[in-house]
């Protein structure tokens, strides 16, 4: 079910039925070039200073993944209850010498709300996407999307803005009212794609072996079922029949990635359900995902790469005990797992204590002295309580940024020399 071959067929057939012309699938990036030449949009291009690495997508098209000078597009669910997901990513960038901005000048994509309550519409979603795209552009940093749903939504919105002149005009008008213009990124890039291409640098810094670890992967639906053309595939991973991320990094680190029968199923998040009808979410997560992962694959850990998926698969398990499903399988994002393997502090950086299913047994298996780390973290919390300043991965923002969308050295890329002073480094 849902192999790359099947998905390719669906995409091709949809195109034929929609256009009624038997036209082949069009690469949206070619249309973007045409629109830019006509003065309709600006393309936020990946530049040499973004140090891109090339990968392949569903139709074998090449996609360039920028690895440096990145603008973190955080996820609205991840930061509230699984903060180890973004903090592990920031830490990994520091360790590998990558520069980035992590700003308060970003909205979420608002697509959780749209898919949960429908109190929005495509023009609004496209305008929100374009607003964030322009904000990244004006800082000279390339957007890196943390969330599977934001990634899926932004792919949809980029396509909509390219294909629909009416929506494009409306969005351009709205952006104009806030002094922004219509900028579309050359690529929509998911953070797990960044982790994937950074594998050699991660491996070079690996401290803990994961060879005995059995991992089951949950592939986030919105990563590869929304605008599937942009998802990354690799012949060396599942013979190119399933997305290469996040499995690739686990294999590279030496974990055993085990298959299970319901790999293609969603996690049960449901957008609306996770907040107001969790009976569904937890039944689905436990019965259709966690149980097969444990009983079929004997997993030590479930790995995924989306906010909602980590939340649902992790938090739904506690109540499982009441239904005779006492699994408590640890659920981590790929970047938390990679950071742990690289020796990140399990509590200060990977923040595993926010997860409902304990990662302690997994860490023992990885050879991590989590007891010492836990004691140290306990002392750190007391020190914070006594007024010590927190340890930060990047400098704190000033008061002026409470109000205004600025950062030091802010500059539009097309007006800039290679690297604007003060905007790079672990600046924000």
């Amino acid at each position: 079910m849902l192999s790359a071959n099947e998905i390719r067929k669906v995409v091709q057939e949809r195109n034929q039925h929609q256009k009624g012309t038997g036209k082949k699938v069009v690469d949206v990036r070619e249309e973007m070039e045409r629109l830019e030449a006509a003065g309709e949009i600006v393309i936020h291009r990946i530049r040499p200073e973004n140090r891109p690495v090339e990968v392949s997508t569903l139709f074998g098209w090449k996609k360039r993944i920028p690895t440096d000078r990145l603008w973190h597009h955080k996820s609205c669910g991840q930061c509230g209850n699984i903060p180890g997901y973004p903090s592990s990513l920031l830490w990994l960038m520091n360790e590998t010498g990558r520069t980035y901005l992590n700003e308060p000048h970003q909205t979420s994509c608002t697509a959780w709300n749209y898919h949960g309550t429908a109190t929005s519409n495509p023009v609004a979603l496209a305008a929100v996407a374009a607003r964030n795209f322009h904000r990244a552009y004006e800082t000279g940093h390339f957007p890196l999307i943390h969330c599977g749903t934001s990634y899926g939504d932004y792919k949809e919105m980029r396509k909509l803005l390219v294909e629909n002149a009416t929506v494009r005009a409306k969005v351009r008008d709205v952006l104009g009212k806030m002094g922004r213009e219509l900028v579309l990124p050359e690529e929509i890039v998911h953070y797990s794609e960044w982790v994937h291409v950074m594998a050699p640098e991660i491996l070079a810094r690996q401290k803990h072996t994961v060879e005995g670890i059995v991992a089951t992967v949950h592939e986030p639906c919105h990563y590869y079922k929304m605008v599937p053309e942009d998802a990354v595939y690799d012949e060396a991973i599942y013979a190119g029949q399933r997305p290469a991320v996040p499995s690739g990094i686990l294999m590279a680190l030496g974990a055993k990635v085990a298959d299970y029968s319901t790999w293609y199923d969603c996690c049960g998040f449901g957008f609306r359900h996770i907040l107001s009808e969790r009976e569904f979410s937890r039944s689905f997560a436990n019965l259709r995902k966690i149980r097969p992962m444990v009983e079929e694959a004997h997993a030590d850990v479930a790995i995924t790469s989306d906010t909602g998926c980590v939340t649902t698969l992790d938090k739904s398990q506690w109540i499982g005990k009441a239904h005779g499903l006492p699994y408590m399988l640890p659920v981590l994002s790929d970047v938390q797992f990679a950071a742990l393997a690289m020796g990140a502090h399990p509590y200060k950086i990977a923040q595993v204590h926010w997860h409902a299913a304990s990662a302690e047994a997994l860490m023992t298996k990885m050879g991590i002295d989590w007891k010492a780390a836990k004691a140290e973290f306990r002392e750190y919390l007391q020190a914070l309580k006594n007024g010590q300043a927190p340890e930060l991965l990047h400098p704190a923002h000033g008061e002026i940024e409470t109000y205004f969308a600025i950062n030091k050295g802010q500059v539009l890329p097309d007006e800039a020399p290679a690297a604007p002073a003060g905007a790079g480094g672990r600046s924000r």
Partner: protein
Amino acid sequence: MTIVAHLPQRALTLTEEESAAPPAMELTGRRRASPEERALSETIFREFHADPRYHEFVLGCLNCGECTTGCPAARFYDFSPREMLQIAETGDATTLWDALQEKIWACCQCYTCNMRCRFGNDIAGIISVMRELSVSHGVASTRKTLAPFGRSLTLLMTVGTQVSSDMIQPDFFRDWGPFATGSDRAWGVGADIMRRAIPSDVLQTTRSSWEVSVQTSLELFRIYEETGVLDMLRGLDPDLTEMLIDIIEERREEFEEARERFRTELEGMRGPVATFRG
């Protein structure tokens, strides 16, 4: 950031009659539509077929059932994407109206059906179109179904993030167990200290997913005003909408005051920061 500090913790406002009614998931087929509802169903039906997305998303149906085979919602609800697509394709105002009462809200928006359908229908998308109409026309069962979303809609409309760590309270998330809120009880310090132990200043807030600057939140609200989202929300809950407008008005004043206060620092800045006026 102060914007979310003063948000009232409230659900959507329901009329007495709506509060007394059973939730949407119990409604279907239990009673006849009133004349007003029949008129509304005709309006919605017309608007549904006039939506530009309709012909893009609804391409035909082989009745093969592939979509339903992979559908997570179909495993737990009286719901099937095949039925939804067929209602969209050949249903009348009454069948569409019936679907709006309950079924549209069963879908998880996972897009699995879309990837299984050899006709290339965008079933998840057409369900969203149905939902949008149901929201903007304030269909009673939809108001009831979305009643628990008052707090997250307030957060979303004013700062653009869906949840905050202070929303994940044991009272509402009892099923998540004792470790769902950063396990502060297990560590012997308060939630604020658990947040300060996250190594990024923008993530340390308890009142949003991350700190959001006032300019950013005002830009977002401008988008909502300009693209009809505020009008949709008015259909769902006029009181909530008015409250949001009041909050934003205050923020606009605060923003202009800050512009005065930081005049020297802002001198020479280009782009939206120099020109945006809330």
